[in-house]
């Protein structure tokens, strides 16, 4: 069971309550919630906010691929996964990503949650522009997109 969405910050916010509703099921005994939030310092610079950009279709496709791989690579068949990533401007402390997973047992839930965030970092086309206290801003360097065919 998978839910994915790009959340436009101009229209709505990422809510942990939505994730909880989606993954809640008595067949699962372990849930892990991972939240990424906007931090106030990066590389010794005072950050005031971040603008996120996204290639929406490719991001959703990458989330689906990562979810499907969990079955083959991690052998976790029974699971509920809720992934949302923000797009647009976020202030300090606001949620940029939520990955909520529910599995039968805790070891699966921890492994799955970690696997998803690490793969998103490598494969999902999302970009960050940091804004600083002196009114300057900068696109973060990032890493070349990982692709098996590339």
């Amino acid at each position, binding site marked *: 069971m998978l839910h994915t969405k790009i959340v436009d910050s101009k229209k709505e916010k990422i809510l942990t309550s939505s994730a909880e509703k989606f993954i809640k099921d008595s067949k699962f005994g372990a849930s892990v919630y991972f939240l990424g939030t906007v931090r106030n310092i990066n590389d010794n610079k005072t950050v005031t906010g971040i603008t996120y950009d996204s290639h929406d279709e490719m991001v959703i496709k990458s989330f689906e691929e990562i979810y499907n791989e969990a079955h083959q690579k991690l052998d976790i068949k029974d699971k509920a996964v809720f992934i949302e990533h923000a797009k647009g401007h976020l202030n300090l402390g606001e949620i940029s990503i939520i990955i909520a997973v529910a599995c039968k047992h805790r070891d699966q839930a921890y492994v799955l949650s970690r696997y998803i965030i690490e793969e998103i970092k490598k*494969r999902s086309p999302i970009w960050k522009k940091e804004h600083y206290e002196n009114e300057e801003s900068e696109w973060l360097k990032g890493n070349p997109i990982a692709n098996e065919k*590339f």
Partner: protein
Amino acid sequence: MKIKLELFGASRDFSNKGHLNLEIQEKASVYDLRNEIIKYLDKNFKGNESFIKVVKSSAFCSENNEIISDNYKITKDQKIGIIPPIGGG
């Protein structure tokens, strides 16, 4: 052939429209498209080095949202996305 290059991440600084309209030769490859973008930057941004670096380190994606490599042949007018180095989360 006419290519609508959709801009993402750092490449958004190449235009305030969110895309570039480029003209490439028949049967050009992604490699040729990359060079065409560099030509555009030479002309419009005096060869801005950090912009060129973005182009050289970028991947490209097709209308079908597949990553396409430098030797991929572009056979028709289409929309192509430039994918600079990523970093979400």
